[in-house]
């Protein structure tokens, strides 16, 4: 049985004959470039701000806008990483090591050009993997029952909770906060009101979009306000880099490129790891296999190639679990799952079978977004450097305005706008105590999935809790979860001992 038909492909292609869809893809890429390039404002915050705008849009337009921003955001984070040694997103931290050293040698233009081309290669590679792997995985996932889904959702949640912050306990506690928040509202099974305190606005549950805006946008802005006077670094006069110089560099590093793309895509598929770990692993692998003459630590182009190829290769990889089992592997795809739910789509094993046309649309949109990112990134790289120079005293209130307007766009009521600030303040206090934000959002998104499948699994198996470990696939997933948590729990004390 083929999950994708020729009609699906034709439908998806036809969507791009609408100039508005193409325009929104361009707008999305530009927005991603701006949010990514603005130091301290991450891709997640950008997507959280954009998502409410897509409420009244149809699927094609909404996804064009969001996927454009998603694809371009990670590359753009390399610009401040290279120019001012401040990664635009955590995924660009590895880039700043060699990229900034290149900039100090007057080779910033070369580093930025390499970053955009590598991001394009990594992105396209991962989209091809997504296109070839996801339908097969979805077929397998169709055979899963509630028991396997519960275990998978648990793995996704605990994996993010375990690696999101400095402390495993704080990560799990943050996930619990998200899960408790997800139970607010009317219980889907019994119709009973839960934890609404008589508030009509809470009958529909804790609103996801205001929660995203509060936790990712407001907390970031308040944190950023603390180091508003961070000093800018002066760079020497920069050499212009000609694009014809690129080809020999890539031919010299073709295996590194391929290896980094594979690492990034594979890490993207795994729950929780995400682009920053992909970039570090790839960078580490490049450094490990350094040849005599490589100048790591002094401005080595291979460092930029490895990190930037890998972090953008995560974009396609990260969509694999989202579109095949409906479980976001990281906070960015958690925002995307929210956007898909808004569109009335239930991402999961039935998505590709029932909405194969939309799956193809996503593939094409991500491919085109990568091409646009390459074109815009190369032609406007001089202009993008200006974004880095937007002063914090202007950037912070502008993002706050966009968050409020975005929250208002959800329903046009005061509740959502106020919720952004209340949740944002709560998140800021948690952040000051070093609680990570990502598990809260994952808990909020995965909570209903966990509860529904736990209840269904237990009811269908006569309340036998052992079913989650005795069924082979579920048992295997639970074992992986336990090993992961145990490993990370032991890693902390071991680190302290070594220190």
């Amino acid at each position, binding site marked *: 049985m083929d999950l994708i038909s020729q009609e699906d492909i034709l439908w998806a292609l036809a969507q791009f004959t609408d100039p508005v869809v193409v325009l929104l893809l361009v707008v999305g890429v530009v927005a991603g470039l701006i949010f990514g390039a603005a130091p301290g404002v991450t891709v997640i915050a950008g997507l959280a701000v954009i998502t409410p705008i897509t409420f009244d849009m149809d699927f094609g337009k909404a996804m064009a806008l969001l996927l454009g921003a998603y694809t371009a955001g990670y590359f753009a984070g390399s610009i401040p990483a290279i120019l001012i040694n401040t990664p635009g997103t955590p995924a660009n931290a590895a880039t700043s090591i060699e990229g900034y050293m290149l900039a100090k040698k007057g080779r910033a233009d070369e580093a930025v050009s390499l970053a955009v081309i590598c991001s394009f290669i990594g992105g396209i590679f991962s989209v091809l993997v997504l296109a070839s792997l996801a339908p097969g995985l979805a077929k397998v996932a169709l055979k899963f029952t509630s028991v396997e889904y519960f275990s998978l959702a648990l793995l996704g949640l605990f994996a993010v909770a375990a690696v999101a912050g400095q402390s495993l306990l704080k990560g*799990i506690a943050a996930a619990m906060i998200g899960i408790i928040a997800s139970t607010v509202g009317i219980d889907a099974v019994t119709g009973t009101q839960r*934890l609404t305190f008589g508030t009509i606005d809470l009958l529909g549950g804790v609103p996801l979009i205001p929660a995203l805006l509060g936790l990712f946008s407001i907390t970031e802005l308040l944190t950023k306000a603390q180091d508003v006077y961070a000093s800018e670094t002066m760079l020497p006069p920069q050499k212009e880099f000609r694009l014809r110089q690129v080809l020999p560099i890539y031919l010299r590093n073709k295996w590194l490129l391929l290896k980094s793309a594979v690492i990034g895509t594979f890490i993207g598929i795994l729950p929780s790891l995400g682009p920053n770990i992909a970039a570090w692993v790839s960078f580490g692998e490049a450094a490990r296999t350094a040849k005599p003459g490589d100048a790591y630590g002094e401005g080595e182009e291979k460092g930029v190639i490895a990190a930037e190829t890998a972090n953008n290769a995560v974009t396609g990889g990260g969509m694999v679990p989202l579109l095949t089992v409906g479980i976001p592997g990281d906070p960015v795809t958690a925002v995307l799952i929210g956007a898909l739910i808004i569109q009335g789509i239930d991402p999961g094993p039935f998505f590709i079978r029932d909405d194969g046309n939309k799956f193809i649309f996503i593939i094409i949109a991500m491919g085109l977004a990568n091409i646009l990112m390459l074109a815009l990134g190369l032609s406007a790289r001089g202009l993008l450097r200006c974004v880095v120079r937007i002063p914090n005293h202007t950037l912070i209130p*502008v993002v706050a*305005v966009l968050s409020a307007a975005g929250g208002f766009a959800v329903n046009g009521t005061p509740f959502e706008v106020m919720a952004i600030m209340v949740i944002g303040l709560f998140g800021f206090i948690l952040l000051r105590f070093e609680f990570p934000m990502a598990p809260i959002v994952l808990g909020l998104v995965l909570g209903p999935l966990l509860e529904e499948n736990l209840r269904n699994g237990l009811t269908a198996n006569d309340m036998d809790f052992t079913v989650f470990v005795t069924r082979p696939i579920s048992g295997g997933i639970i074992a992986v979860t336990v090993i992961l948590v145990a490993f990370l729990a032991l890693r902390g004390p071991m680190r302290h001992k070594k220190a």
Partner: protein
Amino acid sequence: MIRHPDILSGLALIVAGAVMTYLSWQIETAPQEVLTARFFPVLASIGLALCGLGLAIKGLLATRKSLPNFSDLRVIGLIVVFLLYFFTFTIVDFRLSTWALMLASMYLLGARSGKQLVITPIAVSLITFVIFRYGFEILLPQWI
């Protein structure tokens, strides 16, 4: 004096977990239900309290560390401005409230150039209004 932030956050989580367990226990149930509506929230609340307990113990065993500082006047000022903006968002004209937010926030965050303080708030409020109103067709609060 609390010697580690984890002790404070752990205790706060224990209290929050206990309160949430109590509140979850108050959720109405029907006698014939096997898995009631309170089952999952109670489970998660107990999990939260246990995390708090673990964190508090970890804090007690850890070396001394100071509590996070919440007295940065710039951040407090910004929170007040944001609260005013977000809580009056639907009752004040978007252009006016955004202009006021921009002006107050920029000043708080260190902008001192007269030209910047005049032009940027007006430009941001008008451009955002036009993009949302005419680009995305979202009706923002307006008096006129």
